[in-house]
């Protein structure tokens, strides 16, 4: 069980998650300091490392639309957030899977900041409201990458197999 620490609306773009002006910063260890930079209060708490791992961001539809910048996923992976949204924009979803950021697709999610959520295999259970909401599985095609812990270990494994060194 974990707490919803931040709630945002529909069509939150990568310009909001990770503003373009910080794009020269690329290291996943450095990107979290600029996460949601223009939401000063939330950003300040991220910088102070106030959130325990697996803290939850609840977003509206089409989360992560816009740019392919991977910083938008790495800045949320750093503090180890879980993002729950009705759906995600394609490139953000793939970047997040590749980096091992946890996402939950939940089309009907109802939750507010402060609510406690629990995830079962196919449901989000809002412990605070007592309601539960069905989860839609992540794209099947990507499951092997998730299982491998991200695209880097997955690709490394393929490389070794193809060179017959494994």
């Amino acid at each position, binding site marked *: 069980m974990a707490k919803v620490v931040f709630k945002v609306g529909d*069509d939150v773009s990568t310009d909001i998650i990770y503003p*373009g002006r910080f794009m020269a910063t690329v290291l996943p260890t450095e990107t979290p300091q600029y996460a949601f930079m223009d939401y000063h209060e939330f950003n300040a708490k991220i910088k102070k490392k106030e959130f325990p791992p697996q803290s939850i961001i609840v977003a509206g539809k089409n989360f992560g639309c816009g740019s392919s910048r991977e910083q938008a996923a790495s800045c949320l992976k750093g503090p180890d957030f879980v993002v729950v949204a009705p759906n995600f924009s*394609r490139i953000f979803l*793939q*970047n997040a899977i590749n980096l091992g950021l946890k996402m939950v697709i939940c089309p009907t999610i109802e939750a507010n900041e402060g609510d406690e959520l629990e995830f079962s295999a196919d449901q989000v259970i809002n412990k605070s409201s007592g309601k539960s909401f069905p989860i839609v599985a992540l794209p099947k095609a990507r499951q092997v990458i998730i299982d491998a812990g991200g695209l*880097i270990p997955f690709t*490394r494994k393929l*490389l070794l197999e193809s060179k017959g060194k494994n």
Partner: protein
Amino acid sequence: MGMTMVEKILAKATNQVSVKAGDVLEPRVDLAMSHENGALVINQFKDIFQGTGLEAKVWDPAKIAIIFDHRVPAESSKTAGNQKKIRDFVAQQGITKFHDIRGDSGGICHQILPEFGYVRPGKVVVGTDSHTTSHGALGAFSFGIGATEMAAVWALGRVLNVEVPGTIRVVCDGKFKSHVAPKDLILHLVGKLTAEGANFKVIEFHGPAIEQMPTSGRLVICNMTVEAGATAGIVPPDGETIRYLQKEAGVKDKPDIFGPDSDAVYDQMIHIDVSQLVPQIACPHTVDNVKPIHEVLGTKINQIVIGSCTNGRLDDLAIAARILKGKKVARQTRMLIFPASTRIYLQALKKGYVADFMEAGAVVMNSGCGPCLGIHQGALADGDVALATTNRNFKGRMGNPNAEVYLCSPAVAAASAITGVITDPSKGGE
């Protein structure tokens, strides 16, 4: 069962007779493009090889393109460092399609790729930039990916676990009215589909209005398909594609000309009569918040921007020059113009457009992406309103979350520069 354009391309890229939407494939990549974010790709690429005992060599240095465009020339030592790191990697790996900061061969990646003949019909193109959708204009399956995904492509030469996308077929009839452009068509379509309407799908363009559209216009519409969430946009290659590749891009070989099967299966069909379109404006703060121009006429503008991978091509500049020649940019308004490539800049210089712009009071800037995403010049003040021919108007896009960005065609931008308010170019400059 018949195949769409992208199904045909993916069947070929995986040596299969036929594939269909939903299949999971690992297509061969013909071109892999990055810009300054290549610095992050390099980190991830080296990480993949960590502990394997294998040498970190890219699969094919001739199929990788790297173009510096986001912050050129470097605005900070950090960017300069990233660029240096890429330069060293390019030399070490023998990457040939490299465009450094130069006046004779530089520019925005989505102009450089077509301009230098790097993209051909039927090919698979990936880029670490969401507007990689642009290159569907030449009949390629071209889509944006993240840096780690690109690192895997550099290592393996294929994209892993691609689900064949479904396709939305958009048929465009009619002739554009004067002062209405491909930009107005794509803004209208994004408004109709919404920002997520084409998520995980391809938009395939057909009809007389597309057949009569030059490649420059096709690049505009494919460029912005991603604003409806699309994986890619694509136009069936034709005589115009051959003309562009041979006459403008200097390609010698004959491009592969093909279309979808007549019995291809589509997720959705959309019909647009372009003769009914008026200039369109995407209002703050989402690209799908599109209104016909008459609903926002008179909105005061502090900064006009013409340029970017969307509308910084020679015909865009020609339209703007025709409207601005002999006129003045309004006193309270700033106007920035940044051509999509240095080749276009030079052509605009020779045709006298640059002089027309400067005499009107516009600032003509270096070719690059900077102002569009607020990372290199042209930032807005709190409360500023910008009108731009670029592709995104998200909150904070031009460097300030307390400013507003409207999107439009070059004709609307030029006409509005003279008045300082959003102005219909057909009644322009009054």
